[in-house]
């Protein structure tokens, strides 16, 4: 069963002149077709302006295409009457946490969504506590949200979505401002939500090492999906990724550079362990 189905989706932002008259369109998404099965962990990669954030906004009906359809659990996202079902199914976490915090106290912010779902107080309490624990911010529950650091705020924003218990979470560069420790805690949180609760994860990111942890990587360029495969198959195409302004993990880059020098090494290495193993084979063979 697919939680998200995108069929021949096209989207353009209107271009206006100085008087505000529409004089044309800026095509951001071009004939996108994509199926995401329930429970999958998908990363969407692409440089700025590739259309990946615009696509993400179609997954819960923030944007609706000029032509083509997006279905969430079979519900057409352009159906206004069902939009709350869509938004309850697919939660979004955006890039900038400052724009997502609504309350002054951490736990009140996290409680915002469950309160709006009309849940009884004890359930709200339980959801808020478990969401805060999931992002390791429980001890900050009574702190003032705006006094936290950028990374801490982002974790609160993620907790706010987790508290809604959506079936699918779309995260648009959630770790951009976090330190390595913070990034790891977010990544392990995401993976735990995916594995233990079966929540479908769509992670939009620039970080190659994060995309490498997904089950599947979708690469976008210039409004189209240009690659869609398991991480190893994607990152071994170093030339192609460089062409569209994307990096590969350092160890993959190393393997690629060595191969150019005539060394017979597999490019399907993403982690230092995999790379070390390959190198050991080569050194021992010689």
């Amino acid at each position, binding site marked *: 069963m697919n939680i998200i189905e995108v069929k021949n989706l096209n989207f353009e932002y209107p271009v206006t002149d100085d008087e505000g008259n529409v004089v044309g369109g800026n095509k951001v998404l071009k004939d996108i077709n994509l199926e995401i099965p329930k429970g999958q962990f998908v990363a969407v990669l692409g440089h700025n302006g590739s259309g990946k954030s615009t696509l993400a906004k179609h997954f819960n009906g923030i944007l609706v295409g000029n032509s083509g359809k997006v279905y969430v659990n079979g519900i057409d996202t352009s159906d206004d009457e069902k939009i709350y079902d869509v938004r309850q199914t697919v939660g979004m976490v955006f890039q900038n946490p400052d724009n997502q915090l609504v309350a002054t106290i951490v736990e009140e912010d996290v409680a915002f969504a469950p309160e709006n779902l009309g849940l009884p107080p004890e359930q709200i309490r339980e959801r808020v506590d478990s969401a805060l624990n999931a992002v390791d911010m429980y001890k900050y529950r009574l702190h003032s949200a705006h006094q936290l650091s950028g990374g801490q705020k982002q974790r609160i924003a993620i907790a706010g979505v987790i508290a809604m218990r959506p079936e699918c979470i779309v995260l648009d560069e959630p770790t951009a401002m976090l330190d390595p420790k913070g990034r790891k805690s977010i990544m392990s949180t995401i993976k735990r939500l995916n594995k233990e609760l079966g929540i479908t994860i769509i992670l939009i990111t620039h970080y190659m090492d994060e995309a490498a942890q997904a089950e599947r990587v979708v690469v976008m360029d210039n409004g189209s999906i240009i690659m869609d495969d398991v991480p190893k198959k994607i990152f071994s195409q170093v030339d192609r990724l460089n062409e569209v302004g994307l990096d590969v993990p*350092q160890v993959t880059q190393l393997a690629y550079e*060595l191969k150019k020098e005539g060394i017979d090494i597999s490019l399907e290495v993403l982690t230092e362990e995999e790379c070390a193993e390959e190198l050991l084979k080569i050194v021992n063979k010689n």
Partner: protein
Amino acid sequence: MNAVETKNLTYKYSVGTPFETTAVDDISVTIEQGEFVGVIGHTGSGKSTLIQHLNGLLKQTFGEVFINGRNIWDKDVNIRDIRFEAGLVFQYSEYQLFEETVYKDIAFGPKNMGLSEEEIDKRVKKAAEQMGLDEELLERSPFDLSGGQKRRVALAGVIAMEPKILILDEPAAGLDPAGRDKVLEEISSYHKNSGTTILLVSHSMEDIVKYAKKVLVMNKGKLFCYEDVDTVFSMSEELKKIGLDIPQISKLAHLLKQKGIDIGNDIYTVERAKERLLKIIKGNTDA
């Protein structure tokens, strides 16, 4: 001459409340003129709080701050002058753009310095060029530009004041790899051309390794160390303990060493790893 000097710098916030926290704890450090310094530390380690003292945005609870040899809180020093000397570019600086055109936005700082129209014009054009912004962009609205371009406009606005010290808080965060490289390359060439002292706050060890000569490491409000790049990144175990990470390629070098292949303790770039490995592999073949 020292560009920046702090003596026992300490900053506490929410003093007298249950939330009283020492964000910066007894920091004494000296940064020489013309240095390119990477500032690293986990979230909440005090690095943002520290840099906000260097142009007087925050006033320390104890200690002293000297910029170009002057105690910035001395009664004879006008703090406004210090802010022109030490330019600070915040995180997500594109949100600070506000003018109708790119030109006016970059001109805002120089205008406030009371410079002549002619000098302002010269500086705006020079700063735009240094940040790789085409002259045709100057009459555009800053809000029509891409994220990377906006970021470079914000940087040009600070550079146009020609500060002797340029402090950048995560200038590449949130940009894609191409935008990130462009911003950092422009900063690096500006550093080389102008000799400006640069403090670059970043979470990216790869970027720090590539651009900085020295690294200032913060941990829990304290100065963990201030050393050259080689020294800092050879302490990988210590860095891990304080929530920092080393580049993936350095991790590979450590792992290879454990498995009996020694390519050195000074591997931070793919380039160097490649050279050393080629020597080993081809050396074996020759033998």
